[in-house]
Each structure stands twice: as structure tokens, then as C-alpha cells.
């Protein structure tokens, strides 16, 4: 399956292991990635907060570039925040022909135009809806047996439900659980699994931000998770990179490894931890992986 691939900024910046691991697992899942390397940042909601038309036009440009990729079945992203920001802009663009014409007039300078109805899926959605859980399960070489994984969804991929097309028939807010199970792992439920990581206010109210992250990590520890997995690199920044600071705010030792979704999938598909960049996290996933044999097992 060929997809127009939008990796986002953070996956090429502070979480390069996300972009890297996606590239590694794509061929194993028969996904051909055509990277949208000409596209710009989605704005993560911040540019929309600044100027709605600007955010809509920048994202319409990305959508138009995706629509130019020959033979691509759809657009795919690996960042919950990108998914949320893009879905918001796309909803406005798809809702009103006159507005779309107005935005396309700006894109015309570059010879681009966005036609309504692009399909844009986060890798998690694509995994479940296009590749399928049975198909995924059949490709598992190293099942995550006994691995207790806490899903951390990130807000932008579960809310608002209506805009993201989440309902009983399409329970996208449960996909992470389903993927963990398909890979042979055990789903650990904990209070914070669909809550906010706190990242959006890290510069505005650092204590509240880190308190959110610290509480979720603590809840996951209390539920005896071995690790968390997230489809959002911004959540990863707060959960992993900032974990040493979050420990101080909530006043407890945390030491909870946090994996990117493609890393968890990659482990189950038989890739080596180092190939997936698991050695590059702030909290090293030593409780997840027996580094000597590269066999997945719960250390505890």
C-alpha cells in the first residue's frame, strides 16, 4: 500500500527514533512511504490559534501535495497532534465550497489546489483499518508475551469524537488496546490513558504540565505496567524527555519507559531494539527488553 507520508516536525527533531522506526517497519507491513518533504508544519493548533486562515491554507497546501502523489491510497501521519490539527483544518475546508475556493486562490500561486475528500489517517488508524489486526497478528515474529503495556493515546487522536469519526462502529479510541493485543501483549488500563500529557502548557504552566505527566506515569506504575506506548511524539516529549523533572513535581520515582507505536510494532515484527532507536530514550526501556538477547520479556 502506497501512502503520502507526513512525518511531522518532532519526529525529525527531538524524537528522531520515531521517524526512523517507522521507516524500518514500513516494508515489513508492505507500506510504501512517499515522504511529503515539501510540506510544512501543521501548526499543532497554535498557528490556528494565531490565524485560522493561515493554518487552513498551510495544511491545504500539504493536502494538495499529498493528492499529487501518484498512486497513493491516502495520506498517513505518525503524530496524534498532526492528525488533530489537520483534521480540524480539513473539516473547515471540506464543509464550505466558497471557503475552499478562497483558500485555493492562495495556493494557485504555486499551481496547487486542494480537492475535497482527502483521507488522512494516523498510522494507528491505518494499522487497524487498512492492514487489519489479523494480518498484523499473522506477521508477528516475536510476540510480546507477558509484556504489560499501558496505552497512552494523546488527546488529539481521541477527541473531539465527532470530528475524528469515532463511534461504536469505528472505535478509534480503543485501537491502541487492540494493537497491543494483536501483538501478543497485555493491555494495562490506568486512569490517565486518555488524558492530557500536559505538553501544550509546558511553557505556560510548567508545574501543572509536569503534574499531569507525572500522575499518568505514576498511575501506570501503580497498575504495574512495564511500559507505555503512544502514537504522539509530543506526549512522548513530556512522558519521556521530561520524566526526570516530572518525578520531582509529583515527588516519587517513576522510571517508566515510553515507546513510540512503531517501536512496539517493530519489536513484535522481530526488529532489534537498537534498529528501532530504543537506546535513545531518556528513560531506557530496560524493563521491556533483555538487551543481551534482544528478546522481549518483562524484566520485573
Amino acid at each position: 500500500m502506497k501512502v503520502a507520508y507526513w512525518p511531522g516536525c518532532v519526529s525529525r527533531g527531538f524524537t528522531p527514533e520515531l521517524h526512523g522506526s517507522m521507516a524500518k517497519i514500513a516494508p515489513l507491513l508492505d507500506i510504501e512511504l512517499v515522504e511529503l518533504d515539501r510540506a510544512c508544519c501543521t501548526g499543532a493548533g497554535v498557528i490556528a490559534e494565531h490565524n485560522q486562515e493561515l493554518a487552513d491554507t498551510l495544511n491545504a497546501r500539504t493536502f494538495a501535495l499529498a493528492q499529487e502523489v501518484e498512486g497513493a491510497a491516502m495520506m498517513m501521519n505518525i503524530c496524534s497532534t498532526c492528525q488533530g490539527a489537520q483534521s480540524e483544518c480539513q473539516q473547515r475546508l471540506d464543509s464550505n465550497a466558497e471557503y475552499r475556493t478562497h483558500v485555493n486562490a492562495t495556493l494557485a500561486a504555486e499551481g496547487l489546489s486542494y480537492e475535497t475528500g482527502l483521507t488522512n489517517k494516523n498510522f494507528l488508524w491505518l494499522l487497524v483499518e487498512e492492514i487489519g489486526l489479523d494480518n498484523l497478528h499473522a506477521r508477528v515474529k516475536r510476540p510480546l508475551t507477558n509484556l504489560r503495556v499501558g496505552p497512552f493515546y494523546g488527546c488529539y487522536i481521541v477527541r473531539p469524537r465527532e470530528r475524528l469519526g469515532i463511534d461504536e462502529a469505528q472505535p478509534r479510541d480503543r485501537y491502541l488496546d487492540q494493537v497491543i493485543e494483536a501483538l501478543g501483549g497485555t493491555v494495562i488500563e490506568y486512569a490517565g490513558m486518555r488524558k492530557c500529557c500536559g505538553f501544550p502548557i509546558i511553557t505556560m504552566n510548567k508545574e501543572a504540565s509536569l503534574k499531569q505527566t507525572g500522575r499518568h506515569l505514576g498511575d501506570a506504575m501503580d497498575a504495574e505496567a512495564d511500559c507505555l506506548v503512544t502514537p504522539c511524539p509530543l506526549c512522548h516529549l513530556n512522558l519521556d524527555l521530561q520524566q526526570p523533572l516530572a518525578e520531582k513535581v509529583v515527588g516519587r520515582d517513576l522510571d517508566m519507559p515510553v515507546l513510540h507505536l512503531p517501536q512496539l510494532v517493530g519489536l513484535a515484527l522481530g526488529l532489534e531494539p537498537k534498529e528501532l532507536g530504543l537506546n535513545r530514550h531518556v528513560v531506557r526501556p530496560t524493563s521491556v527488553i533483555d538487551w543481551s538477547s534482544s528478546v522481549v520479556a518483562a524484566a520485573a
Partner: protein
Amino acid sequence: MAEVRDRPPEQFTLRLRRYDPESGEAPYWDEHTVELEPHRSVLEGILQARDKFDGSIGIRCSCRQAICGSCGVRVNGEASLACHTHLDAAKRGARDGVIEIEPMGNMPVLKDLIVDMDAVHWKKIQRVTPWLLAKQPVPEREYLVSRESMVDVTQTMACIQCGACVSDCLAMEVDPGFIGPAALAKAYRFVGDPRDDQQFERLNDLAQDPQGIFDCTHCFKCVDACPKDVNPMGQIMRLRRIAIGDHHIVDENNGERHEAAFTTLVKEYGLLWEAELLPRSYGGNSRFGKFAPAAAKELLSSLPAILKAVLHGKVTLMGALKPHKIPKRDLKSVQAIYEKIESRKERYELNLYITGQDEDEASSAAPVAAGAGAESPAAPTSPEGSANQ
């Protein structure tokens, strides 16, 4: 509809959170099985349990038709009106087939499912001066305002003060002093009203307050919790936009600096440069921002995380010192888009709350220029609606 209502009564088991603070006993769960038609409400289920099995179950309700806002509770962990939630849908959403009903969050429990709205919700509403401060002189007859601006504030006027958004607000969960979604939506009702005289004062107050508009963590919880499509988070984003875009308010919480730094970095490089975003959010939106005392202080406090990130090869020196960029030609196109749109006299916005979808009858309504300052009451005020973030 007739078919739905013809369905015979079924059994539904409710798991109720019980707590009487005056008893000195800890909270506990109580289960009752009621029998009702599936389309009946969770509220009817609770009332039947109270009538049949235990008269001491505490629940507040009045209109039973999603107008009075009295019966806010959490059903299966999410805040909603008990009278506005069907039993069959609640059962399908339950983890183990038992409908779990708890009091709303972020507010103290008075008894069982009744929370103290006065202690939290109403205090916060009072905080935002929830009345019109009319422009002077007051006209002898009625004020004339545009249809769009009235439809626009109607969205926030649809609030029935049920507290569902307050209950599920994730920022308030860690920072109880946060003014919160209901009160800030109420603030927009007056900020967006062209008859109000205090737009700048209201916005400056809410921007400078460390628990004001920049304390919202953008989690969309309030958007989903609201039974009336008020879209509180969307209203908070518009408060930020008008505060920064129209009034150029520079707050003490890094809100304006963060937005300016983010927007500028994407314009300069096409992609976000995280290593530069953080110091600029503290120290100011330029290359020199990182040398400002506020940025240096922040850098120092983050040192434990930064050191580990560098040691583990997560962040490289190159990554921190050099931005990743998009190709030159594309960057020029992106910058041309910025220049064209930012040079407009007024922001151009689509308010789906006013225009609806194309299929709707209202489809002919065109997007309107927005961002009216306090001085131009005839222009519609930054209208974007429920579809907006």
C-alpha cells in the same frame, strides 16, 4: 422513532457511587437493577432505583429534558446529563455491561451524585464579570448589531450551566484554580458582544492571570462533555486570538511569546525547531531570546532532562543548533502564504456554527471577515464555531 419506543422494557444494572461526607464513612459502590424501555434515560433509571430500592440515593434533577442543567453526573467515566443519556447507549458504553454512575469531578461531593456547584462552578463564573458593561452613551432605543455577531455569541449563551465541562477539565484536575471552560466560554459571550465596552480590559485580565486563558491544556474534554455544543475550548482559543491578534497583549505567562515564537519559526524554516521554541517562549521571539534571563533560568531548571537526552543520544548538538528545513523553493511558497494572509486588514475566518455544512440550508452563508476590535461593532467578531479548535 415509534419503533424505538415500542421496544419492551429491559433490565439495566446501575453501579452508583455513594458517599455521605457527614457519615464519616468512605465512599462505596452500590448496584441496583432497574427495568425500563431502552430509550429511557439514565436519570429515569436512577430515579427508579431510588423509588424502588433505596430512598436515600442523592441525585439532583428538575426538568428531565436537558434544559435545566441540574442532573450532571459521570456515566462510564464521562460527564453528561443523566436525563440526556439513553440507557441502551450507556450500557453499550459500559466496560462490563453495568452502567457506572458517579458524581461529577473537580467539585466536592455533597452527597452521592450531588456536587457542590457553588464552591467551584459558580465562583468561577463570577470571576469573569458575567454581565454586559455597556458602551456609553447607551442608545435611547435598542442597540443595532449584526446578525452574525449575535448568532456567534448565541453559541456560548446556549450554556445551561450544568458543569459537565468543569467536571472533566483536565487542566483543572491538576490546577484547581484554573478559571476553566464554562467561565471562559461565558467570558467570550461578552468579549464577542459588540455592545460591550471592556473587551481589552476583560482580555488583559484573563491573559495576565496565570490561571486564565493560557492555562488551558487543549485536551478537547470540554468540547466532548458539553451537551449543548458550546465548544468551550474553541471559545478559549478565540479569546487568545483576539487578545494577541487585536490587542497585542503580552502576558506574563509566555502565552503570547509562545504563539509568536511558534508561528515565526514555522515561517522561517517551514518546520518547527523545538530547541529554539522553548527559549524563545521564555525569553522573547528572536535569536537572542535564549540569552534573556528568563530563558537562562528555564534552561537551568531543565538541565537534568537535557543532560540525559544528550547522554542518550536523543538530542544531538547538531539537532539543537541547526534547524531542519524544507527545500528553499517550498519555504518561499510558505512565506508567500504567510505574507498574503497576514497582510489582510481583517482576519478571514469560517464559523461553522454560523454557516453549517454545505449540505445545510445555511450553506449560502459565506465566511466573513473577522477579528473585529472593540471599535468596530458592526463587523462580526471572529466567528469560527464548534468545528474550530
